[in-house]
């Protein structure tokens, strides 16, 4: 792995029930994620994805770049910006910004079309 390398893109389309499954798995039952009518009543276009579910997609891309070993994912920092929506494809991209002492730093983000839902993310992984 070298500076300037792109990591494999991760593409995932969350189905309409992903926020419900993630609510159960994580314990975050905020109705803006699982109740479309509630979300619309507070001015959102629809129920929105959990930000930490989106962060988990960035983490999956980093883990894949580290050979699939969860021990090799050392750090992940993200900023939550645009809202993510169910039933729209998410693309996670990343580029290696430095490699030293067996660690690679990857600049990464997640987007739905032009809507960049996670920006300025940085992952650090162990590389062989």
């Amino acid at each position, binding site marked *: 792995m070298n500076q300037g390398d792109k990591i494999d893109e991760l593409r995932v389309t969350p189905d309409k029930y992903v926020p419900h499954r993630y609510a159960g798995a994580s314990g975050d039952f905020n109705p803006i994620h699982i109740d479309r009518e509630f979300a619309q009543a507070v001015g959102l276009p629809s129920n929105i994805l959990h*930000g*930490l579910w989106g962060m988990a*997609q960035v983490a999956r891309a980093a883990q894949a770049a580290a050979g699939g*070993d969860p021990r090799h994912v050392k750090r992940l920092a993200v900023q939550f910006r645009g809202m993510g929506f169910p039933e729209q494809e998410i693309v996670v991209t990343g580029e290696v910004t430095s490699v030293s002492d067996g660690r690679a730093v990857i600049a990464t983000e997640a987007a739905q079309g032009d809507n960049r839902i996670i920006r300025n993310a940085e992952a650090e992984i162990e590389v062989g």
Partner: protein
Amino acid sequence: MAAENVGKTWKGFTYEVGLEKIREYANAVGSSEPVHHDRDAAREAGFRDVVAPPMFVVVYSARAMGPAIFDPDVGMDFARMLHGSQEFVWGEPVCAGDAITTDVEWKDLSERDGKQFFVFESVSRNQDGAEVARGTWTNIVRGG
């Protein structure tokens, strides 16, 4: 808001990690690697038991964050709050059967562009005292 309370800590929330909870979480986020589902695959890879995906940190530490976020000594206006940014640094892996204890500290309060930034740090350790994850949680409260 109570800026003089920056530095307050909330200590000692313990979460017991179950195998089926790891599988449920892994399924919800799409982590399909066998080490997150299958005990034999995990042991073959050198883990004590099925290992949690890194972002499972939110499951064992988020409930420790709750008392901090809702504490009147912090005084966050929950209705105007957004989760602005998040960082995790991982240490020892977390496996089924572990007991993870998380301490939380209110690290910082600042204001910029009419927004307040509340920064909390969580430190999670396993039953042997080894650090498994350190989280920096930044919540933004819009003015109004």
